[in-house]
């Protein structure tokens, strides 16, 4: 990890010095354990603040939307796929970017680690395979593999597919991963059971929209939930309105979501709304053999028509 940091700082400093970019978007060290903060470096001095570890789960592609500068951006596998999606959707131009690719071994799950600890965590350190968690009266060494965010445990694209600089050798991709076991279980439920399942899932939602706002796909100038004329969704804690928001948002991400996990990570009350986006991801793969953000040259299936597209739903 420290070798990553050194290289990230080196590359960033060089890009800024050579005026290839106006800023480098990365992470700076967080003020509390298990967190880092998205950060932009504009000078060689700022570059010293750039860090990298397993707490960089926020998707930095979210910070590119409609920016006008030339930007260096630190990108793990999923970030890079979302950058590709951003380029395909005209939210940033490829020539504005220098993508600094980071082969990723997964981000750790803050909530899971917190729940496993006997008290407040005050310090977390990590090496290649282990995470050491310390607090008042306890110290624990956890195998990183056991405490990954679920999306990282299921990830099959850890290496950035689009980059200009790569800060380390590529890592081995995970093979034989069953990405959709939990989704199949929900698919098998009856409509009434599904209704209940989703009611429970979203019962704690406080409508802060952290999931939407952490998502690089959610860049609409006015989200449908914020429209006033007409107002599509009520704003109270009404369960139907809450579910309407989550379902519709998920549908808007169909064929675009890379399962970066930023939504779930951002949620202050621990809702796994990825169950919705992953169902759509699964459908896109089953119907179109499509994975989002894998190529700058192919149009996404939902914004193009091909004669071979499945059309069984037309009765």
């Amino acid at each position: 990890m420290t070798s990553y940091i050194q290289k990230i700082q080196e590359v960033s400093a060089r890009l800024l010095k050579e005026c290839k970019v106006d800023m480098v978007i990365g992470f700076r060290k967080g003020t509390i354990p298990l967190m880092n903060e998205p950060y932009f470096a504009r000078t060689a001095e700022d570059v010293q603040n750039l860090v990298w570890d397993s707490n960089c789960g926020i998707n930095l592609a979210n910070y590119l939307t409609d920016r006008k500068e030339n930007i260096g951006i630190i990108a793990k596998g999923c970030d890079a796929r979302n950058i590709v999606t951003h380029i395909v959707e005209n939210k940033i131009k490829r020539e504005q970017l220098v993508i600094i690719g980071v082969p990723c071994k997964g981000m750790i799950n803050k909530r899971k680690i917190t729940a496993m600890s006997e008290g407040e965590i005050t310090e977390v350190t990590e090496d290649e395979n282990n995470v050491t968690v310390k607090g008042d009266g306890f110290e624990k060494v956890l195998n990183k593999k056991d405490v990954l965010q679920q999306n990282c445990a299921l990830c099959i694209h850890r290496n950035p597919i689009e980059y200009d600089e790569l800060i380390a050798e590529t890592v081995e991709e995970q093979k034989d991963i069953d990405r959709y076991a939990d989704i199949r279980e929900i698919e098998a439920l009856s409509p009434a059971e599904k209704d209940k399942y989703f009611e429970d899932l979203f019962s704690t939602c406080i409508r802060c929209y952290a999931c939407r706002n952490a998502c690089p796909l959610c860049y609409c100038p006015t989200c449908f939930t914020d429209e006033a004329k007409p107002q599509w969704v009520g704003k109270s804690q009404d369960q139907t309105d809450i579910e309407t928001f989550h379902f519709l948002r998920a549908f808007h991400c169909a064929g675009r979501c890379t399962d970066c996990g930023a939504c779930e990570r951002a949620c202050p009350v621990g809702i796994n709304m990825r169950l919705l986006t992953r169902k759509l991801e699964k459908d896109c793969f089953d119907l179109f053999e499509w994975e989002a953000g894998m190529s700058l040259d192919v149009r996404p299936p939902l914004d193009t028509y091909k004669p071979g597209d499945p059309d069984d739903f037309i009765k």
Partner: protein
Amino acid sequence: MKVIQIDKEKWADGLDRLAGSYRLFAPVKEEEFYNFKELAKDEAPDLNYLNTRLSPKAIIYPQSEIMFEYSLDESAEDHHIMKEVDNSYSPQAVIGVRPCDAKAFLLVRLNFDTPEYKDPYWIRAYESTTLVGLACDSPCSSCFCTTAGCGPYHEEGLDILLVDADNHFLAKVLTEKGEKLIKAAGWDTAADEAEAGKKIETGKQAAETKISAFVNTDRLPEIDTVELYKAPFWEDVSFSCINCGTCTFVCPTCWCFDIQDENHGKSGVRMRNWDSCMFPLFTVHGTGHNPRGTQLHRVRQRFMHKLKYYVDKYDVGIQCVGCGRCVRSCPVNIDIRRVCELMNNYGTEKDSCAA
């Protein structure tokens, strides 16, 4: 001041008795987080929490609250007339509220209960609520209450302060409301006041020394508001913000709301819902113009309100009790302690390197 000793063996019995005359709210662990919940019959408070994920503000100021109802049926005599809904405001008690969260109600009161304006919903709910605090012996590393006008044993805003003393609680009765609740619970063993006082003082000092995070707010009143508004650090502070409402919704002192009418067929309700200054919609005008059109505007507003406008307007310190929830819950780790430091140091030599 009266101190009652409540043996832990008598704790549950007392709560049972209270349930007859109060609706009881207390921390309960739900999956991975603690939150305040109305206790069901025979449900016990779980007092092993550091603090709850969400503040207890919703017990007095619900996230969605119906104020009026009306009929749109023109054949009805009273159609299109707003009628107040019949909310009971029966007595309720919050058991195990942290001193920071109790103090927060007093800050919110400055907005809802003023000489000019009285918010009837908030006031009625507040008046029907008894706050039974639990002194905080294990503050989190992100708590900074002692420099935010509060503290782990702070009494302002509480009706009773409970101090955990192994096999019993010491209950410091602070108000008439508190007195009434203690009686209703049947807890009647007076503690030796001198000894109890000493114990509470020792606990207080031990807890206060455990607070490891601080903010400096001494310069905030004197800094020129416009200069601070124009400070260059806002771009840096706001960069990572995703403009979600997490900080404002978990905050015990954020009070903003939005009023909505919702119709269902021929009837409807007028309700208020928590709003957030982090949302673009918060300030957008009917014309479509938004005076706080950028993320920088909105982030600056939140911190300026809490740490400058409020300070100037009320002269009672910052609009923050140091509970640390926004620090712990922010998805991108924006830290009010850091921002406060930047603001407080603005215009001094320290300000250039603080970021």
